[in-house]
């Protein structure tokens, strides 16, 4: 299980670094927003993995709340891209 934990954290960490590269470099604004969206989904996976690895039960709540808030945030960013207000 210790080896599996190292492999999981390594794979997810490399994925997050690649996302951060796209967020930092991305030539256009939508590129950065795609990176932010995908980083949010990755954090959900990482939180649930750390719920297993550390044995603390409350961490899965972070995953659930992060999934909800990441969705709302991405929709707000997309609305902002279209040049509309939040109530349209």
């Amino acid at each position, binding site marked *: 299980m210790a080896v599996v934990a190292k492999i999981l954290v390594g794979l997810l960490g490399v994925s997050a670094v690649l996302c951060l590269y796209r967020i930092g470099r991305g030539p256009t604004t939508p590129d950065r927003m795609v990176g932010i969206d995908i980083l949010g989904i990755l954090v959900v996976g990482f939180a649930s993995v750390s719920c297993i690895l550390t044995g603390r039960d409350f961490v899965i709540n972070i995953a659930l709340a992060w*999934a909800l808030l990441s969705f709302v945030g991405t929709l707000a960013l997309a609305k902002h891209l*279209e040049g509309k207000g939040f109530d349209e």
Partner: protein
Amino acid sequence: MSNSVAVVLLLVGAAFDLAGCIGLVRLPDVYNRLQAGTKCVTLGTCLILAGTALLAHCPACSVKAVLCLLFALLTSPTAAHALARGARITGVPLWEGSVVDQWEPESREASEGEPRR
């Protein structure tokens, strides 16, 4: 038995996440990056959450993981569609190798009249 299945699900899910993020870096324009990233990373995270539901210590954690899986499966395509629509309205150009652009009105008329390319 259930443990080994869960570990395999976790590892495959993390590998899918990595593949999606490599696509996010390597592909040429926003729309390609969006589809690679969203599909691969959603599948990978759903597999990780399924593994978590099998391997969790308490039943409540399993239920929360399943809820999170369903929610990710529902909302991720919606968010990706909204982002792609926003990017197209902003006027981000397509990659020069793109074959069809159904959003563009003149290309829609052209494709109705005669087959485009």
